[in-house]
C-alpha cells in the first residue's frame, strides 16, 4: 500500500480509472465492445483511436522534455504534414494510386523530420533556448502550411490514404497499430539500450554530461528530430481521418495537450527523468476527458475548466511533498529501508 501510494504512476492511473467509471455511470454501455464489419467497435476503441495522435506527439515531447527542452512547434508540424501529403495527392491526379500515396506520405514525413531537425539545430548548435527556438516554427509553421495549401482546405478522396487514419487491420484501427509500433520502438530504444540513460544525463546536467563524454549535441538534435517525426505521423493520421488538410485547425493546441500528458504522466518539466508509460496514461486521460464532454453534453468552454481541475489535481497528487506526506500517513509495518 505504501509503495503503491508512492509510485509515480498510481495517481494518473487512479484518475483515468475514475474518469472511465464516470463515463460508465453516464452511459451504461460504455465498456461494451462488439465486432462490427470485421473490426472492433465501441467507446473505448474510439478513445484510443482519437487519442493516437496525442499519444504520438506526447511521446516525442517526453524525450524532448527529458533533456530539459520543450517543443512548441508540434501543432504546426501536424498541419504541415497534412498539407504536404494532401497537396501532393490532390495535384497528382491519380490519388487512388498506392505508389502516389506512398510518395505523398514519405514526402510529408521527410518534411516533418527536416523541421524537427531544424529545431534541433537551433537548440543544439546555435544554442537558442528551446522555448524560443520552437516558438519560431510554431508561429511560422501554420503560415507555411497555409502557403502550401494556398489558404484552402485541400480535400482528397483517396481510399489508400484514408487507411492511415480511418482504416482497420487485424480488427483494430490502423492508427492505433501505428502508434503502438512507434511507442514500442521508443520504449525498447530508451530502456534496453543506454540511450534512455544518456537522455536522462543530458537533462540532469548537460555540461557535466558533455565532459563525461555524452554526445549532448547529437542527443539534443535527435530528440527534436524524433519529436518532429512523431508530429508528422500524427498529422498524417489527423488529415487522413477526415481526408482533408485543414491548415487552420489541424493540430491546433495539440502541443499543450502533449505537454499536459507528459506532466500528468510524472515526467518533471525540469528534465533528467522520464516515464513513457506515464505519458501514455496522461494522453488517455486527456482524450477520455474530451470524450466525456461529448457523452455528458458538457459545453466545450466549461470542459476547459474541468480539464484544468483534473490536471491540477493529478499534478498536486504527484508533487514530491504530497507524496511523501501520503506515505507517512499510511500506518505501516516496520520495515527497513523504505524511505525514499
Amino acid at each position: 500500500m505504501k509503495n503503491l501510494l508512492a509510485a509515480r504512476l498510481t495517481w494518473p492511473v487512479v484518475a483515468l480509472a475514475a474518469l472511465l467509471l464516470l463515463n460508465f455511470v453516464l452511459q451504461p454501455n460504455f465498456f461494451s465492445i462488439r465486432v462490427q464489419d470485421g473490426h472492433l467497435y465501441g467507446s473505448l476503441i474510439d478513445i484510443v483511436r482519437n487519442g493516437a495522435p496525442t499519444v504520438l506527439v506526447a511521446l516525442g515531447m517526453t524525450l524532448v522534455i527529458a533533456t530539459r527542452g520543450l517543443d512548441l512547434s508540434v501543432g504546426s508540424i501536424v498541419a504541415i504534414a497534412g498539407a504536404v501529403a494532401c497537396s501532393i495527392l490532390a495535384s497528382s491526379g491519380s490519388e487512388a494510386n498506392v505508389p502516389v500515396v506512398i510518395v505523398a506520405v514519405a514526402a510529408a514525413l521527410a518534411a516533418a523530420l527536416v523541421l524537427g531537425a531544424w529545431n534541433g539545430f537551433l537548440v543544439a548548435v546555435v544554442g537558442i533556448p528551446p522555448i524560443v527556438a520552437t516558438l519560431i516554427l510554431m508561429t511560422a509553421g501554420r503560415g507555411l502550411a497555409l502557403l502550401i495549401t494556398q489558404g484552402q482546405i485541400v480535400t482528397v478522396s483517396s481510399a489508400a490514404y484514408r487507411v492511415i487514419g480511418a482504416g482497420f487491420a487485424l480488427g483494430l484501427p490502423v492508427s492505433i497499430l501505428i502508434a503502438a509500433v512507434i511507442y514500442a520502438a521508443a520504449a525498447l530504444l530508451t530502456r534496453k539500450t543506454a540511450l534512455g540513460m544518456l537522455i536522462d544525463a543530458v537533462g540532469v546536467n548537460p555540461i557535466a554530461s558533455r565532459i563525461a563524454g555524452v554526445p549532448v549535441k547529437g542527443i539534443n538534435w535527435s530528440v527534436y528530430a524524433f519529436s518532429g517525426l512523431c508530429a508528422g505521423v500524427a498529422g498524417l493520421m489527423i488529415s487522413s481521418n477526415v481526408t482533408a488538410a485543414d491548415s487552420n485547425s489541424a493540430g491546433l493546441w495539440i502541443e499543450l495537450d502533449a505537454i499536459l500528458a507528459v506532466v500528468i504522466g510524472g515526467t518533471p518539466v525540469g528534465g533528467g527523468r522520464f516515464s513513457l508509460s506515464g505519458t501514455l496514461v496522461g494522453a488517455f486521460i486527456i482524450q477520455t476527458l474530451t470524450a466525456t464532454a461529448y457523452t455528458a453534453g458538457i459545453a466545450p468552454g466549461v470542459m476547459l475548466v474541468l480539464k484544468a481541475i483534473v490536471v491540477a489535481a493529478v499534478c498536486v497528487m504527484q508533487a514530491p511533498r504530497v507524496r511523501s506526506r501520503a506515505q507517512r500517513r499510511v500506518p505501516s509495518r516496520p520495515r527497513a529501508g523504505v524511505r525514499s
Partner: protein
Amino acid sequence: MSRRRLIGAAIAACATILLAGCQAGHGGSPGTSHLVVGFAQVGAESSWRTANTKDIESAFQHAGITLRFSDAEQQQANQIAAIRSYIQQRVSVIAFSPVVESGWDTVLQEAKAAGIPVILTDRAISTDDPSLYVTRLGSDFTKEGEKAGVWAKKEFAAASSVKVLEIEGTTGSAPAIGRTKGFEKEIGDDSKFSIVDSQDGGFTRAGGEQVMEAQLKAHPDVDLVYAQNDDMALGAIQAIEGAGERPGKQIKVISVDATHDGMEALAQGKINFIVECNPLLGDELVKLVKKVTAGKSVPRRIEPPERTFTQEQAIAALPTRKY
C-alpha cells in the same frame, strides 16, 4: 488644422453627393468605368470564402469596375488598415466582410467623413450608429435554420416520434446562433420531435465526427442529424458509417452550405437535404455599387437568392456548380 480638415471632408462629401446627383440626373446607363471599389475580405479560410472572393472579383471585372482587393488574414487590424488606405485613395465605395462584429465605429466614421459609402457583405457589425453603412448584403442564418426545420417536418410527416441530434457550429458565432434558433423554432411546435442533444462541432470535420461517435453510443436510436455546415455533416457521416449504419437511410442527415463536397455526398444519398448558404454575392454587389454611386436609395438589408437541395436537385446542379 482639424477644422480645415473637417471643412475639406465636408466639401469632399458634398462633391460626392453632387457628383452622384449629377449622374442620376443623366438617367439611362451612367458610365461606371471611373468607379473604383475597395473590398476588404476576411481571409481565405474555407472553400465557401474562396468561392465568395472569386465571384466578387469576376463580377467586377465583368462590369468594368476597378476593384481594389485586400485579404485581412482573419485579423481586424489588417482590415482596418485596408479600409484606411481605401479612404486615402478616395475610392467610390468601400465594401467589406467584417472579421468580428464590434470595433468598427472609428474607421467607419472616417469613411463617412470622407463621404465614401460603405457596404457590408456576408457578416454583420454591431454599432449604435446606423448611418455608418448603407446596406448589408448577406444570408439570413435564422431563415436557413427554418428551412431545415420545414424539410424535417415534411420528411417525418408519417413518423410518430423523431429523435434529433444537433451538431452546432462554433458556440457564439452568428451562423451557429441563427441556424439553431430557426431550426428549433420551426420544429418546436411539433411535439413528436425531441432534440436528444445539441453539441458544438466547431464547423470542422473532425469535430462533427467526434460528436457523432460519442452520441451514437449514448443515443443509438437517433433518427435525424442536423449538422450546421457541410464539413460537420461529412464528419458525422464517417462516424455513422463506422458504426455500421447507413447515413441517409437509417439516420437522415440535414446540412447547411452546399459546398462541392457536401453536394457530392448529397448526390450519393449520404446527406438527405442541404440548405444553401450562397457565397456568390458578386453580381448583387455590383448592382448595389451602381445604385449607391448613382445616389439611388437601397434597402438596409439584402439577402442573396438561396435555395435548398434534395438528392435529385443536387445531381442536376453539380455539373454547373461554381464552388
